[in-house]
């Protein structure tokens, strides 16, 4: 059932920050069920959404993500009982901050996907990819990133650090 693929001018990069117990397992289920979704998403696995620091979202935007998806267990189902409640509270505040600095909030999606919801994972990723495609690339953060690199403020990899110290 190969469909003719539409070639788009712009392929957004989506980063998904997910917990290992529910959403990662849900994404695995989408795989074992051979569901299809756009290949734009890159998954970073965490023990729990409670571990997800909002800084990771900022860094993803800064390093070239056009959209970010954060997903974990449904409220009450967290493997560690309360991690997702803390995450939810944290992100509620963080969204306000993002809005304040001028990021279109529709680039950032929070959701709950359980280990049984392969279909929901597929919907989520497909929707976000399409939505961000309409919005176009996120450039503001990348400009910031360039400025930072230019001033030489970061030596982010051990190799760079090593090289720097060797001078």
């Amino acid at each position: 059932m190969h469909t003719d693929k539409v070639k788009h001018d712009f392929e957004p990069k989506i980063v998904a920050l997910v917990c290992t117990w529910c959403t990662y397992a849900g994404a695995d289920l989408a795989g074992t069920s051979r569901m299809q979704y756009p290949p734009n998403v890159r998954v970073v696995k965490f023990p729990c959404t409670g571990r997800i620091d909002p800084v990771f979202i900022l860094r993803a935007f800064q390093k070239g993500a056009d959209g970010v998806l954060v997903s974990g267990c449904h409220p009450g189902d967290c493997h560690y009982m309360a991690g997702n409640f803390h995450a939810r509270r944290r992100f509620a505040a963080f969204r306000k901050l993002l809005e304040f600095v001028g990021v279109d909030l529709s680039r950032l999606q929070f959701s709950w996907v359980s280990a049984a919801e392969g279909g929901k994972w597929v919907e989520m990723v497909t929707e976000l990819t399409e939505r961000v495609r309409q919005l176009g690339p996120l450039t503001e953060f990348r400009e910031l990133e360039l400025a930072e690199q230019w001033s030489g403020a970061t030596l982010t990899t051990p190799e760079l650090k090593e090289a720097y110290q060797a001078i």
Partner: protein
Amino acid sequence: MSRIGVFVCHCGENISRTVDVEKVAAEAGRLFGVAYTCDYKYMCSDPGQNLLKKAVAEHKLEGIVVAACSPRMHEKTFRNAAKAAGVNPFLCEMANIREHCSWVHEDRDEATAKAIDIVTMMVERVKRNKKLQPITVPVTKKALIIGGGIAGIQSALDIADSGHQVVLVEREPSIGGHMAQLSETFPTLDCSQCIMTPKMVDVVNHPNITLHTYAEIEAVEGYIGNFQVKVRKKARSVDMAKCTGCGVCMAKCPQKKIPNSFDKNLGFRPAIYVPFPQAVPNTPVIDRENCTWFKTGKCGVCQKVCGPGAVDYTQEDEIVVEQVGAVVVATGFQLYDIGPKPAGSAIEGYGEFGYGTIPDVIDGLTFERLASASGPTGGKIVRPSDGAEPKSVVFVQCVGSRAREKGISYCSKICCMYTAKHTMLYKHKVHDGQAYVFFMDARTPGKGYDEFWRRSIEEEEAVYIRGMVSRLYQKGDKVVVMGSDVHIGVQVEIEADLVVLATAVQPREGADTLAQKLGISYDKYHFYSEAHAKLRPVECATAGIYLAGACQGPKDIPDTVSQASAAAAKVMTLFARNELEREPIVAKVNERFCVGCLACRKVCPYGAVEEKEIRDRSGNLIKVVAYVNPGVCGGCGTCQATCPSKSVELDGYTDEQIMAMIEAL
């Protein structure tokens, strides 16, 4: 660390059909730090694993990325292979290019590009992975059981029979709990005392059980395998080693008119007493509040009459310290006191029922004492007001239960069944009496339960009225019950001799304080919470602590005993090992940066974060920092994301590792 090997799996054709595995391997080879790459048909097979081991040796690899299926499938396999090859297992990661790539995409170029990205992210991660050693903790093979009702007794006997030491702590002077108060038990109507007493005696005679009665938990420290418990043994005023249990003191005590709470105040007891004749241990205690000696300094009769000289007025509370490896909490329940609303309580009272003011309105437990052969009336059913035999008795179910407006929305689970039992016990003793039952629903799921319930209607002729009671009031020597029958839609009024209220099952007073000492969680009613409602129903989320009986939720005896034996089995599983090994994915505090705000302690769902004082050599306090107990930490990482000074890190998921993955985009 930068000698990484990347192994790309074809998974038969499952991956190679959509992903160009050779290209992935070639691209991975160009990454900084990658010293070796290859692709192979089945990496997880024996030859595949051998290939990995050989490559590690030949190319002196220090880190491994296996690009294959989901880590949930084979992470263990490859980490074991890494270990066998001499690489720390935590320096081996999987790049999921099957479930997250080849199976969900059709376009070969796109899928290949994505696979390369996924591999790159994992290579960047592995470069920053640290060698982690599994954490081992020793196990003290001794269990603490809190509460000596049927739940605690069953757990204690099971564990002790398996050869392990048990410490049983009971708050009251005797073990037995509610079951010792019951008359006969549904669904078989066997006498509660007859099945309970032998078990109580087994406990006190068991060589592996240390029993502390009239004692409470003062403090608990430590973690799974290594708890330190302080037990406060309240002053009994009788030397347990000397007392022979003859009972002379109780017979001679001049104070005879103290309401006996074991009999729901239907009878009286002296100031030196055992709660009931079959008490275990059979050593009396002096109730110091009511004892003449303690009130006025005069009397001393019991001391004079005691042959072995066991009575000791100078005894003081004693603190005993016990080292245990596991804890079973079995503190049971109490019945909802439905008098007028207590000040400051979130739960409304039932002032309209006159409980506590109309003497012939009693609760179910009082009825049990009336019906019990060893109770204050010798099993004769009489009214508390005048001792007459009641010819009509109204039972009211769901008093307090399933009553959201009163503050409790759950079902107490046992009342339908014990009310049916009460109608039978009543009819067996008062042949010409009539029982009426007001009920909302009859809930009788259980082996033989519905048959039992039907018997109360079909054979014992109890009249069941579906509806609620709105008010009770005294009229002459009768109690008028005003209620409704929803089936025929009319108001009903019954003049009863006795009214028995099936009041809600509640957790024990003080259940929350005990939970805080133990570091376990509880629901809004203060019932203790299990780790998982379906799959881990007897464990607390706090490792090494287990639940049994009605302290976790309303339960009848069969359910209580099942859970108690299950908790015991969990303890025995723990005790089967000398040491516990666990994944070293735990948080660590950087004490130099930690400012001691303890924000982490507030969010930690496991109570793993403690305060630690840092002192200089002369003992002056420099600062207070957080300390994560690795035995308790569950590894969720919530503390790390919360810490404002970024001074706590979760091993295996450090900021550096995560950032590297994000930056690899």
